[in-house]
C-alpha cells in the first residue's frame, strides 16, 4: 500500500506493529470503498451501513463543538449533506475523513448562525439532560442520578475546554467508546497522532479535574 513519509514512525509511536494497524486500516478502507460505491449507485442500504459505521464518529466530532441539544439534528444534517454530495466524493476510501470535514463545517456554521454565541458550558442543565442521553430512564452502568448527570456534564465541559485536537479524540474515546485504532482508521489521522492526542489530552483533563488544593467536588464525585 502506498504510505506517507513518517507513517512508520507514527506506527511505532502508537505502540502497534505496522501490520496490525495497516490491516485494520486496509479492511476499513476497502469496506468503505465498496459501500461508498454502492451508495453512489443508489444503494441506500449501503448508505445505511455507512451511517451505522460512522454515526458515533460524527456524533463525537459534533459533541466536541456544539451544545448537546443540537448534536442529533446536526448529525442528521451531516449525513443528509453527505448523501446529497456523495457523487462528488472521488476517493471512496476517504469517506471517513470527508465526513469529518462535513461535520466540522456544519459545527462551525452552527456557531456562525448562533448569535450571540451559545456557550457550550451551560447547555446541559444539571437536571435536564437530553432524552437520548441521561434522561432516557434506563439505569445502565454509571448511575443516572442527577448528581452523576451533573458530574458528567461538568466533565464534558472540561473536555470541551481542551484544545481542538484533544477534545475531539478524547470524546471519541471516552464518550463514543471508539478505540485508538478505530479513531485513526475512521478519521484519517495517523495512529501516532491519535495516541499522542489521547495521552496529552488525558493529562490535561486530569489536571483540570484535579482540584488546586484537595478534593474538589467534581473529583470526589468521579473518584
Amino acid at each position, binding site marked *: 500500500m502506498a504510505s506517507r513519509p513518517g507513517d512508520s514512525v507514527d506506527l511505532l509511536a502508537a505502540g502497534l506493529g505496522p501490520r496490525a494497524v495497516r490491516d485494520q486500516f*486496509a479492511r476499513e478502507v476497502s469496506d468503505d470503498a465498496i459501500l461508498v460505491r454502492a451508495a453512489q449507485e443508489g444503494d*441506500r442500504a449501503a448508505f445505511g451501513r455507512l451511517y451505522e459505521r460512522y454515526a458515533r464518529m460524527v456524533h463525537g466530532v459534533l459533541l466536541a463543538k456544539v451544545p448537546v441539544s443540537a448534536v442529533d439534528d446536526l448529525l442528521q444534517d451531516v449525513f443528509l449533506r453527505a448523501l446529497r454530495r456523495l457523487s462528488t466524493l472521488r476517493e471512496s*476510501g476517504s469517506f471517513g475523513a470527508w465526513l469529518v470535514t462535513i461535520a466540522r463545517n456544519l459545527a462551525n456554521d452552527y456557531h456562525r448562525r448562533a448569535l450571540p454565541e451559545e456557550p457550550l458550558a451551560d447547555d446541559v442543565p444539571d437536571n435536564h439532560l437530553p432524552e437520548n442521553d441521561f434522561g432516557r430512564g434506563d439505569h445502565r452502568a454509571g448511575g443516572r442520578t442527577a448528581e452523576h448527570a451533573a458530574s458528567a456534564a461538568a466533565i464534558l465541559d472540561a473536555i470541551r475546554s481542551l484544545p481542538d485536537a484533544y477534545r475531539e479524540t478524547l470524546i471519541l*474515546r471516552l464518550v463514543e467508546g471508539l478505540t485508538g485504532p478505530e479513531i485513526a482508521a475512521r478519521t484519517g489521522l495517523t495512529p501516532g497522532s491519535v495516541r499522542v492526542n489521547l495521552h496529552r489530552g488525558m493529562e490535561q483533563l*486530569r489536571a483540570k479535574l484535579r482540584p488546586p488544593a484537595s478534593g474538589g467536588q467534581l473529583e470526589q464525585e468521579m*473518584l
Partner: protein
Amino acid sequence: MDTTNNKTDNEPLKNSNDYLWDGSGVPDPEIQKLEALLGGFRHDRPAPLFPEFVPSKRWTFFPWRVRLFAVLSATAAVLFAIAAIIFLTHGTKPSPVAMAGWDVSRMAGTPRIGSTTVRANELPSRLGVGQVLETDDQSRASLRSEGIGQIEMEPSSRLRLLTMGNSLKRIALDRGTIHAFIWAPPGQFVVDTPSAMTVDLGCAYTLQVDDSGSGLVRTSLGWVGFKLNGHESFIPAGAACATRPKVGPGTPYFEDASPEFRTALARFDFEDRTPQQPAADLAIVLAQSRERDALTLWHLLARVDDAQRALVYDRLSQLAPPPAGVTREGILRLDQPMLDVWWNALGFDDIAVWRHWERSWSATNGPERMSGTSAPADK
C-alpha cells in the same frame, strides 16, 4: 509521579496507556469511571431507515430536510428526462472533451490523441473513453486524473482508454513504457497489456510492453498484481515480473537477486521445454535463494509439479518458516487459505486486498476471466 525506571512502578502507566489506547491491558479505574459517566452522551440510536426502502417511515425518521431532498431529487429526475428527450430528438452526441477521461499534457515532442496533436502551452487535452494516445520516438506525455493518479508515457508508446467507471478505471498499453503513480483505492486501476492484466494495489510502478507483446512490471512503491488466464503474480516494491503472450505472468523476483537466480528463473518461466531442464533451473533458483527470495519461492509453489513442490516447500520453510496452522500437507495440496496465510506472514502485504478485488472483478466481469486463481501452471 515517580519517574524512576523501576519496572513495577512503570507497569501501571503502561497498562493505563494501553487501556486508554485500545481498551487492552489492566483497566484504569479512573478512565473506566469517565467512560461510565460520559457514556450517557454516547450516540446509540439505530440507523434511520432510508426513504427508498421504508417509505412509510420516511417522515418519522427524517426532518423536513429529507422532504426537500425528495423534492430536489424529483426535480432532478424531471430535468434529466427533459435532457434525455432533447438528446434523443436532436441526436447529438456528447463531445469527447466533456466526457470522463484523463487530462493529457505534452512533456516533449508531439504526442497525439487520435489525429490531434497535444501542443505545448495549451490547456490539457482530454483523453476520452475509446480514444488512443500515442507518442513517437521523440515524444513524451503526461496523463492525470484527480481521482486516479498520474501516468508518464515514454516515447514510442501507445495507450487506449477503455473505461472510466466509478469502480473500475481501465486502460490498455499496447506498446511502450508508462510510469504510473496511482492514488485510487486498490483494485480500481487496471492496465491491460497483450500478455497480462496489471492491477494496481496502491502503488507506483513502471510497465513496459515491447512489440512482441511481452511485458515487464517493476514496482517502486506498494504492490502490483499481474493476472492472465488464471496465472497471477504479486509484485511488491523492489521486485519485478515479466510476462509473455499466451503464457501470462512469470514468477516475480527481487531485482537484487543474483544473476544466476534470475537467469534460471527466466528460463524456468518461459523457455524450458524439455522434461529435465525445469528441474535443473529450479535447483539453481532454490540454491541461490536468499531470505527475501521467499517472494519467488512462494509463487513457485503453485507453478511446479508435485515432486518439485516438496523441494520448494522445504527451501521456503528454511527461509521463512510457515506460520501456525500452515502444514506441509496443506501446502503440498495447494490449500489456498494456507497459501494466503503464509503469504501474509512473509510481510509484503495483505493478500486479502487481492482476494477482495478478485471477488469484485469476478462478480462484475464474469467468472471466465477468473478461472484458477492460484496459478496452477505446472511444468
